[in-house]
């Protein structure tokens, strides 16, 4: 098997007396979708922030493509974040520029990479709006005129426009209605398959994990308590906490 795209070992991070991450190890291979599930406060968002270089762990190491992310300069990390990585936030306000048009939002990463051709930027932005199923005539509209689901799709377009290799998603369907969630999940699944992206997705939703993920990582109290192929973890959970998680979903 090829080398992992990202590999973290021994990640530990304390907030005062709270141990948000406790000796966490995780790997993701090119083109793989890994879901991180677990109860509120179990450290999922903290893990994503550490992996994406937005927070520093007290101990442990994150390797991306063999490079130590913690040892990179901030300039190097930012370059990765806007070129090879992408981050989709639960709240679209954290991931979009609300005062900038949809086209400007999608074009930002292209421009940050030095693309200086207005016509080409606009063409890419329009084609990405289409890919995320937003009418092209909304190109010059501000995100606040969009519904919650459209804002999330815009955030995805803005992130994917530079064709990154690794996407972090923190509950991307979090605040949405169930039917809107389903449509967004379908879209994510199609784009991920089409582009061969590696995705680390945090979700509360076991059904979403089953739909999207090749592998599942179960977290509790800052530790990884179980991980494995999606079907195996969901159909034959080993850890008592995973069993509880799966049955409570089935019961719901």
């Amino acid at each position: 098997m090829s080398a992992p795209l990202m590999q973290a070992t021994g990640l530990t991070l304390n907030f005062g007396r709270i141990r948000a991450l406790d000796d966490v190890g995780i790997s993701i291979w090119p083109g793989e979708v890994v879901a991180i599930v677990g109860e509120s406060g179990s450290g999922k968002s903290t893990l994503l922030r550490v992996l994406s270089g937005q927070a520093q762990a007290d101990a442990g190491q994150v390797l991306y493509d063999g490079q130590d992310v913690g040892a990179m300069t901030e300039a190097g990390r930012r370059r990765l974040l806007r070129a090879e990585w992408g981050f989709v936030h639960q709240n679209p306000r954290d991931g979009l520029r609300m005062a900038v048009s949809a086209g400007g939002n999608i074009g930002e990463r292209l421009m940050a990479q030095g693309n200086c051709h207005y016509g080409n930027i606009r063409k890419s932005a329009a084609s990405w709006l289409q890919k995320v199923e937003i009418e092209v005539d909304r190109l010059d509209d501000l995100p606040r005129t969009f519904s919650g689901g459209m804002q999330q799709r815009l955030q995805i377009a803005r992130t994917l426009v530079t064709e990154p290799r690794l996407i972090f998603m923190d509950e991307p369907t979090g605040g949405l209605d169930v039917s809107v969630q389903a449509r967004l999940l379908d879209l994510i699944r199609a784009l991920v398959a089409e582009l061969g992206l590696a995705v680390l997705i945090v979700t509360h939703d076991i059904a979403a994990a089953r739909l999207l993920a090749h592998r599942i990582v179960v977290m509790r109290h800052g530790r990884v308590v179980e991980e494995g192929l999606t079907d195996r973890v969901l159909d034959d959970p080993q850890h008592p906490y995973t069993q509880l998680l799966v049955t409570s979903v089935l019961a719901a």
Partner: protein
Amino acid sequence: MTYSYAFLDEATKRMIRRAILKAVAIPGHQVPFGAREMPLPYGWGTGGIQVTASIIGRSDVLKVIDQGADDTTNAVSIRRFFARTAGVATTTHTAEASIIQTRHRIPERVLQPGQIIVYQVPMPEPLSRLEPRVVESTKLHALADYGLMQVRLYEDIARHGRSASAYNHPVMVNGRYLMSPSPIPAFDNPKMDRMPALQLFGAGREKRIYAVPPYTSVKSLDFEDHPFDPIRAPHPCAICGATDSYLDEIVTDDVGGRMFVCSDTDHCEERAP
């Protein structure tokens, strides 16, 4: 009560000169300085005045313009201030001045080696509208991460069909730092590029100094397919007939009469028949 030469005490002038030297050494980079209270409210050019006060000497000849004109109240009072506190000669002729303090214009006459132009700057940070957090905008400068500024230009074209903002169009200095040219018309931006004179910028309220040394590249931000192309009103000057100067529109009566004249009054007077 007596004042020091050029009003500011020597320690303050030394501190400002250090900031100026650093600014010249890092073209386009904003250097913080400990701005002093001046006998003028902010917005009246206190940043420019402090820079001028720190570089001026008895042999200097000072010109002060406000929007191109030497005879506005503000320009006149700054000129008088330095005539009184620094004992310098003053002039309205660009060619004769060794220091030109300006608000919102660059003279039409090409500035020469040895001259210094001091800009009054209300807002030094070109990213402020897009990134109000100072810590973050400082970081963007450190990393030369200017995609955000290009986004603003994109928005201008998407909304108005043009890339040039009429004033304060951002520039890249020496291919490294994004800089606000102060609210000069975009028409003046090309004059900054490889200018033989030293350009100093003082922002009093924000306590920042920045500089462009002589012959430094200053490029207005644009897109390949929407090159920087500032607007000039399509008229000759009604007084001197100039077709290549920046014009002010002047209302001549109360029935809608108007005319276009050079905003640079010295330039116009020199050319006028």
